[in-house]
């Protein structure tokens, strides 16, 4: 590897690299635009950075951040659980399962999320009472819909059910991306259907599922600003809009909202990075972390052997 240190090593070529004047010119143009923009940030008084500073940690704003996070996490959890179920149903041998999964995706993907949010807000008007009983027969108990489906629940249901349709397709694509031979190898070992799915197929599918799901989560963070349709009035966008209307200063409060959305998105991206590294085990991430002490002892030569292995079989690691 370190040729130049060897006495009889070949003299390495020192060629003149190709020049790229175009790159320099375009880089200078971009830098000029960035400089002008940065200058305007500092010199344009209409940004009102003082107001941004006043409201960035305002109680209403911070509470709004909390509610937005709650809505995002709760609706994504609901969506992921439903999506796994829908993706499994779509692969099922039972035609009723396949069909109902398809119809669910068709409906919730085919209508606007705004419409769905308004609908969940009005559910108590449509069905004033939720009751359990035999259809056309006796009734066991009945509850006021408005008491169960309050604005928070309506917002989570609206966002989560809509999202489940998109995630179901992402999960389906992920499950389909796993080589058929994996299923066969697990079957040949006598593994049960459930074990094959949870231990063999899903962990490999996750490599394909996580990046677009991260995308969806970040999308969801911002879609929560639509919950006004329910109406739900505690989220970040509503809080900053209310403050903007009160102070007649929309620009600095939009900046406050944008900064918070960017902060949360950045944190989510860090989280996604670690989840991707976890599910990339053996493919993107070859760190021998999963070996327990006894096995490591048996494995003998550690990192060195591994590096040489990788160079020995480039076609294997390329696969």
């Amino acid at each position, binding site marked *: 590897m370190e040729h130049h240190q060897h006495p009889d090593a070949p003299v390495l070529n020192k060629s003149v690299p190709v020049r790229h004047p175009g790159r320099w010119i375009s880089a200078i143009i971009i830098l000029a635009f960035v400089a002008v923009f940065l200058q305007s940030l500092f010199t344009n008084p209409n940004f009102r950075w003082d107001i941004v500073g006043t409201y960035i940690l305002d109680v209403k704003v911070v509470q709004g951040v909390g509610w937005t996070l709650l809505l995002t996490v709760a609706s994504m959890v609901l969506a992921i659980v439903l999506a796994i179920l829908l993706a499994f149903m779509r692969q099922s041998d039972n035609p009723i399962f396949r069909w109902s999964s398809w119809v669910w995706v068709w409906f919730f993907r085919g209508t606007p999320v705004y419409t769905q949010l308004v609908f969940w807000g009005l559910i108590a008007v449509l069905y004033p009472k939720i009751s359990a009983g035999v259809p056309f027969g006796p009734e066991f108990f009945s509850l006021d819909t408005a008491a169960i489906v309050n604005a928070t629940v309506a917002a989570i249901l609206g966002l989560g059910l809509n999202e489940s349709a998109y995630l179901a397709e992402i999960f389906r694509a992920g499950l389909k991306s796993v080589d058929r031979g994996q299923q066969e*190898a697990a*079957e040949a070992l006598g593994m049960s259907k459930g074990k094959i799915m949870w231990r063999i197929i899903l962990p490999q599918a996750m490599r394909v599922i996580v990046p677009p799901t991260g995308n969806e989560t970040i999308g969801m963070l911002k879609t929560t600003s639509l919950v006004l349709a329910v109406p739900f009035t505690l989220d970040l966008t509503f809080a900053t809009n209310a403050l903007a209307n009160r102070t007649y200063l929309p620009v600095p409060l939009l900046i406050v909202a944008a900064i918070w959305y960017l902060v949360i998105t950045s944190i989510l991206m860090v989280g996604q990075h670690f989840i991707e590294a976890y599910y990339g085990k*053996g493919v993107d991430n070859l760190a*021998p972390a999963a*070996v327990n002490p006894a096995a490591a002892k048996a494995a003998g030569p550690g990192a060195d052997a*591994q590096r040489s292995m990788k160079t020995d*079989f480039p076609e*294997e690691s390329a*696969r």
Partner: protein
Amino acid sequence: MTVTAEKPLVKIEGLHKYYGHHHVLRGIDMTVNQGEVSVVIGPSGSGKSTMLRCVNLLESISAGRISVGGQLIGYREVNGKLHDLKTKEIAAQRREIGMVFQRFNLFPHKTALQNVMEAPVHVKGQPKAAAQKWALELLDRVGLGDRAGHYPSQLSGGQQQRVAIARALAMEPELMLFDEPTSALDPELVGDVLNVMKDLAKSGMTMIVVTHEIGFAREVGDTLTFMDGGVVVESGDPREIIANPQHARTKEFLGRVL
């Protein structure tokens, strides 16, 4: 090679397989005795892999019967009528049958050790410590004790296939199926895999090996079966068939591969 007890372990009777209207297997009869190595050869598309995959129900059986250890595969026979087995019952039958694939099919997200431990821990419910000890023994046996912590992508094809053999052996099957185990390997890696298989044969394992390795058939095989067009053309002592094939099709095939 090995002394056979002349006790039939695998019995295939009148096996047919259709894919839609495509008649792939046209009545296969075959018996493999306990401890025997049965080598199956034939041109691609002859149905030899399909036949092998029927034995552990990776392919459904269109007609005929397969039994392993006296147990009917895939069905229960009640008053002369066949009933499909439940998924769980099929899984139980598969535990007694190890399978090695042409493309290895190791679990890429698990290390070599975890691949071998997977079934003992999660199918048999063995405690992890015991399963790990057993898995390391098996990896040693296939010459890969020092590769336990490696992921499949860090192993050569030959090494992956040997891990796959160890993984199948971990369930202590009474029968091992090999589906062209060396066909996806670079020529210089074939020898290591065949050596592991030879050792396994010597240890008395009952094996059905679908392969193109005529040398292996001659050296290790107790019987050789030549298949073509979904039927068994010729079957018998490997050395006799290779030296003196009786059928024109066998002669032609051997002429091409030898």
